[in-house]
């Protein structure tokens, strides 16, 4: 086999050629094998030509590698139109000498074959084109047309083999496209010649929803992702989703961010959600999920963060209008470029396409906050297990990028409130539940925290109010052994207030009474004390009188003694004198 004879001197490290196609370089760990041909195969309409085009254009614009597009099917005018659809101006690139094209037209009816020939004409044209721009990249789209144009396949095969060797010798990183066959990768077995790298593009339609997938069939000398990767073609080219599932080794943040509702922050340790966490809000229709997510978005924008809002139920203008009714001006954030809405019907395309879209927009906008409202609508585009797998990939990806994710989930009436969310519960860090509380002929909203990983959180059910100043949370009435909400709560509160007032008045009255009594008592005490004091004084006076009287009496008695004995007392003399002086 000629394949086995391929010279491989440059095998030490396989150099790679970045394609610039979003996601592809990650799957291939650097790009396509440099200086070698790569086969892109797939059915009609699978995106082979667009793939090849973008490879060429990115090379010329972003990597300084001019390219040659040799088309076997489309004329240069058609090519230019196709390029424009991806946002590339082929004619401009050609006039700047970055791209050369050559349309090879083969009409079987025009050609008669007689005897020996080779395809040197093709080689010469290719070489001429390569030399004209100094090309490093070559696209042959699709070389299989030769098989339908020429009948001598023995010559063709030999020449194709020579062509690929020739491209390798010139160090061209080439893309060869080929239509897939029934049992083989390509109808004419091109994979036999291009042994280094084969990429298969698939285009499937399941239940009227189309999904494009890409698979690297082989990549000699390099490890590569082996899964089927969904991809998207839009006006900016191809986007391939590089991941199927990431590990659980993403970094975590301890930073907390506000929910936009002070009371809800309080319920979450007073700090709110963890940055980079995943928040799920589930509830039945009309419980305020969108209002809650808009409030969160509003708070993020107030902090100057960028917020990406995927709306699957409403148009952006409708959300902006509706949130205006609860006192939020979201339009200002859109204008400032902090908030970006992305509205689409979930059934617009398949689940994986949604995932690719998420990725693409996330990479473009680089938000800190990512909101999907609601995820339950995605189930209309796939089965529950598919939704789970998509969300797992998405959540892993967002966690890796430290983007706080806010998902809402519409649960259905009648069913268990937690039921539909069970599938994804394990992915969720903080789970808020909004529910109806029907009581006394009215319906009110209640909010509680079902779980919140890594923080102490309130176990209270709060009544959830939508006012024209935004969202309010009110403690639910839980006194006298019953739970009351809405007007019943208000009435009960009024009743309580009234009875409380009466009690307070009674207490005040008693206090005043007591005060009065105290005063009366004190007055009485004062009177008694005054009486007592008066008595005491009198007693003192009497005692003094008595003392004086006693003194006089004893003096008189002495004097009387003297007088009786005729003896003049010596000592008491002074006393007597004193008395005589009137002291």
């Amino acid at each position: 086999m000629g394949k086995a004879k391929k010279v491989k001197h440059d095998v030490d490290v396989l150099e790679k050629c970045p394609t610039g196609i979003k996601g592809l370089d990650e799957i291939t760990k650097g790009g396509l094998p440099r200086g070698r041909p790569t086969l892109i195969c797939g059915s009609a309409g699978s995106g082979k030509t667009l793939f090849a085009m973008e490879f060429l254009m990115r090379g010329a614009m972003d990597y300084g590698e001019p390219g040659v597009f040799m088309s076997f099917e489309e004329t240069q005018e058609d090519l230019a139109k196709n390029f424009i659809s991806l946002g590339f101006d082929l004619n401009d690139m050609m006039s700047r000498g970055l791209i050369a094209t050559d349309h090879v037209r083969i009409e079987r009816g025009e050609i008669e074959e007689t005897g020996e020939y080779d395809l040197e004409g093709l080689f010469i044209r290719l070489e001429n084109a390569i030399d004209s721009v100094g090309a490093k990249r070559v696209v042959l789209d699709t070389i299989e047309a030769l098989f339908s144009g020429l009948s001598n396949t023995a010559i063709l095969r030999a020449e194709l083999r020579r062509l690929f060797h020739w491209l390798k010798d010139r160090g061209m990183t080439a893309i060869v496209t080929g239509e897939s066959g029934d049992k083989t990768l390509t109808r004419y077995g091109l994979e036999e010649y291009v042994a280094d790298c084969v990429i298969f593009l698939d285009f499937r339609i399941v239940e009227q929803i189309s999904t494009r997938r890409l698979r690297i069939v082989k990549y000699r000398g390099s490890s590569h992702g082996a899964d089927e990767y969904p991809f998207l073609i839009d006006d900016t080219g191809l986007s391939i989703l590089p991941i199927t599932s990431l590990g659980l080794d993403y970094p975590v943040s301890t930073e907390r961010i506000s929910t936009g509702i002070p009371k809800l922050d309080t319920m979450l340790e007073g700090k709110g959600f963890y940055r980079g966490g995943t928040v799920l809000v589930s509830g039945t229709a009309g419980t305020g999920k969108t209002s809650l997510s808009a409030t969160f978005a509003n708070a993020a924008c107030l902090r100057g963060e960028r917020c990406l809002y995927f709306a699957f139920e409403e148009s952006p203008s409708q959300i902006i209008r509706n949130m205006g009714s609860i006192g939020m001006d979201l339009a200002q954030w859109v204008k400032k470029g902090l908030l970006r809405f992305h509205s689409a019907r979930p059934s617009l395309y398949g689940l994986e396409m949604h995932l690719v879209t998420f990725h693409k927009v996330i990479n473009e906008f680089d938000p800190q906050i990512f909101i999907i409202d609601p995820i339950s609508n995605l189930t209309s585009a796939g089965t529950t297990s598919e939704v789970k797998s998509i969300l797992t990939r998405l959540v892993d990806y967002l966690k890796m990028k430290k983007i706080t994710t806010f998902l809402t989930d519409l649960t259905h009436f009648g069913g268990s409130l937690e039921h539909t969310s069970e599938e994804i519960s394990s992915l969720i860090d903080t789970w808020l539940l909004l529910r109806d509380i029907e009581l006394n002929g009215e319906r009110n909203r209640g909010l509680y925290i079902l779980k919140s990983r890594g923080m102490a959180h309130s176990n209270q059910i709060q009544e959830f109010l939508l006012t024209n100043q935004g969202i309010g949370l009110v403690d639910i009435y839980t006194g006298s052994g019953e739970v009351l909400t809405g007007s019943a709560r208000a009435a009960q509160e009024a009743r309580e207030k009234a009875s409380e007032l009466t009690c307070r008045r009674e207490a005040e009255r008693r206090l005043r009474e007591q005060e009065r009594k105290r005063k009366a008592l004190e007055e009485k005490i004062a009177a008694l004390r005054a009486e007592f004091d008066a008595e005491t004084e009198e007693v003192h006076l009497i005692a003094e009188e008595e003392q004086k009287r006693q003194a006089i009496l004893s003096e008189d008695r002495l004097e009387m003694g003297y007088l009786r004995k005729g003896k003049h007392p010596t000592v008491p003399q002074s006393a007597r004198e004193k008395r005589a002086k009137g002291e």
Partner: protein
Amino acid sequence: MMTYRKRGGAKPDSTEEIWNLRLYVAGQTSKSIAAFANLKNICEKHLAGKYRIEVIDLLKNPQLAKGDQIIAVPTLVRKLPEPLKKIIGDLANTERVLVGLDIRAA
């Protein structure tokens, strides 16, 4: 530059138009030499005096390959009379060349 090698009868018949043939080759390979020899034989035999052969060497004029959509060499192109016809190969099979050039009905 183009390598013109005009051949054929010096006095073309005025009632019939000139056959304008172009042979694309890539260098002096055995195939191109054989093709030219075969072509000359056929023309002398069937189109004596009313043909003109132009040989184009693509190695010298690579840009000319695009115009006539040449991929294989040797390629014989019948420019005139219309419509354009192409025969690829070394023209060893005379019958097929005659059919291909519409000199003889198939």
